């Protein structure tokens, strides 16, 4: 590969991987069975697009199943959201280019729920931090955060340098979190991620949760993981009795002592919710996104919205994958949700929507209400004031325009 007998694109991909591996002191490569990459025009810009077009023209083809993360445009809503036709044209070219390289443009950040579930010890190369922390923690698979160019390189070479979470030594717990809080709503799990992640901004910090009162659902672990990765830049957690590498507290720490023991109580959760302020601006935007909604979440939203209407002057956005939206349509959830006046976008994430800053100004949005702690964290870059609320509260706010607290 390095000599170029498999083409220049593969040669350059391996050179990139070698340099990254050297940086982290990797001793060898490990084969990966699945790749997930972020690649859309909002995120990569014109230079990234040119890079991909050059790779495609060099005949680059992925040698492992490679899927794409959420993107920035749902073409069916281009006009309604007044997004740029020029950028949409580039996005279409980009998608065509990725397909030429055998990339499966599935456009979802919940691949771990809808597309591929790696097994214990399986090496993968995934992008989107939420997917990585889920793979490592819940499935016991092994992945580092793989940025777009790095994930594509893994797709082309079928391997990654062995460092970080591919190695046992980085997978052991580093600190303990006693969960005393009653965690009823998805937002509560995200709030835990905020509390734990904010105080430990370290890729190699691995929290071990214990004291969990019941078996969490996949959607709950999704919200927790996405939030930990967002606030703490973390790539892995354990939950004793729940996740595969934590049958016991001792096993989760692998013989090490916790550097710290912390507790999360109901009072801590309430402090998180109380920490958001509407700043006397209207509550006219509610968003369920980041990560995309699963079919179960869509069902919950349909139940909560049945027979209700989004308040005049307010907007409710929901993002999901093409597969989930299709199933929700079949099952009637979509009709209930859309009849209430919500907009359901597929294949995108709200926070990377093309033209979002312009949309914010045009629509007079200042506050953004969501049940996703991750979204509440990252969308600040677009100058939104975010407010985390529980799922049913978000729907009440969408239908009334008023905070329920």
């Amino acid at each position, binding site marked *: 590969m390095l000599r170029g007998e498999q083409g220049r694109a593969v040669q350059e991909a391996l050179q*990139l991987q070698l*340099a*990254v591996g*050297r*940086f*982290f*002191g990797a001793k060898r490569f490990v084969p990966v069975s699945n790749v997930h990459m*972020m*690649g859309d025009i909002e*995120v*990569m*810009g*014109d*230079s*990234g697009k040119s*890079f991909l077009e050059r790779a495609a023209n060099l005949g680059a083809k992925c040698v492992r199943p490679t899927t794409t*993360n959420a993107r920035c445009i749902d073409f069916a809503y281009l006009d309604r959201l007044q997004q740029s036709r020029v950028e949409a044209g580039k996005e279409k070219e980009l998608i065509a280019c990725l397909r030429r390289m055998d990339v499966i443009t599935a456009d979802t950040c919940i691949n771990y729920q809808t597309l591929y579930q790696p097994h214990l010890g399986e090496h993968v190369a995934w*992008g*989107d*931090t939420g997917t990585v922390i889920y793979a490592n923690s819940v499935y016991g698979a092994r992945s*580092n*955060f*793989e*940025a*777009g*160019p*790095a994930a594509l390189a893994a797709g082309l070479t079928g391997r990654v340098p062995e*460092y*970080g979470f591919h190695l046992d030594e980085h997978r052991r717990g580093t600190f303990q979190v006693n969960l005393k809080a009653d965690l009823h709503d998805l937002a509560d799990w995200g709030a835990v991620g905020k509390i734990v992640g904010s105080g430990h*901004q*370290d*890729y*190699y910090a691995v929290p071990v949760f214990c004291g969990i009162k019941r078996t969490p659902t996949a959607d709950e672990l999704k919200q927790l993981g996405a939030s930990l*990765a*967002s606030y703490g*830049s973390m*790539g892995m957690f354990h939950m004793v009795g729940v996740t595969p590498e934590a049958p016991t507290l001792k096993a989760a720490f692998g013989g090490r002592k916790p550097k710290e023991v912390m507790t999360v109580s109901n009072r801590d959760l309430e402090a998180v919710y109380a920490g958001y302020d509407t700043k006397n601006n209207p509550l006219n935007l509610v968003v369920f996104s980041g990560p995309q909604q699963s079919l179960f979440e869509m069902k919950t939203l349909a139940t909560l919205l049945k027979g209700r209407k989004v308040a005049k002057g307010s907007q409710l956005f929901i993002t999901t994958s093409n597969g989930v939206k299709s199933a929700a349509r079949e099952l009637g959830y979509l009709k209930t949700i859309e009849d209430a006046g919500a907009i359901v976008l597929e294949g995108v994430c709200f926070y*990377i929507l093309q033209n979002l800053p312009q949309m914010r100004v045009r629509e007079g949005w200042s506050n953004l209400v969501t049940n996703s702690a991750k979204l509440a964290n*990252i969308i*600040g*870059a677009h*100058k939104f004031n975010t407010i985390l609320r529980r799922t049913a509260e978000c729907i009440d706010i969408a239908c009334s325009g008023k905070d329920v607290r």
Partner: protein
Amino acid sequence: MSTARPIKTIRVKRAFGAVVEGEALVSTEGFSPRYDLDRWSGLISRPGHALEGHNIKGRILITPSAKGGIAAGWAFYDIQHKGIAPKAFVFGVTNPVMVQGAVFAGITITEGWSMSPYEHIRTGDIVRVDPQKKTLTLIRRGSPAASAPRG
């Protein structure tokens, strides 16, 4: 390259890239090219960031930690092509996305330091990053005025 005698050398733990020398931009706060940066001008734009109003273009950015997610990987390549990239990133702790992004863009990057640079290096000082020797060296003091924000 300056021939001035180095007055302080800090060892870094991991490093990639070419030897670079330039003006330090020292942050006590972590950095994300997605959350903190205006990717068209190079200005740190997030309200309240420790370096708000400073421009990273051509600087050696010294920052304690990496923030943000996967999207940062394309962002470094993007700012490199727009001509607004820093000469080097000097991180206390970082994550793979920053390293992959910097390597992909051909920007010098280091992680870890043998002593805190905050007591020794100020914004505006001229420093050298040598990835082969794994050193961050203070070459000469900048003027106090250099530490004020400027676009």
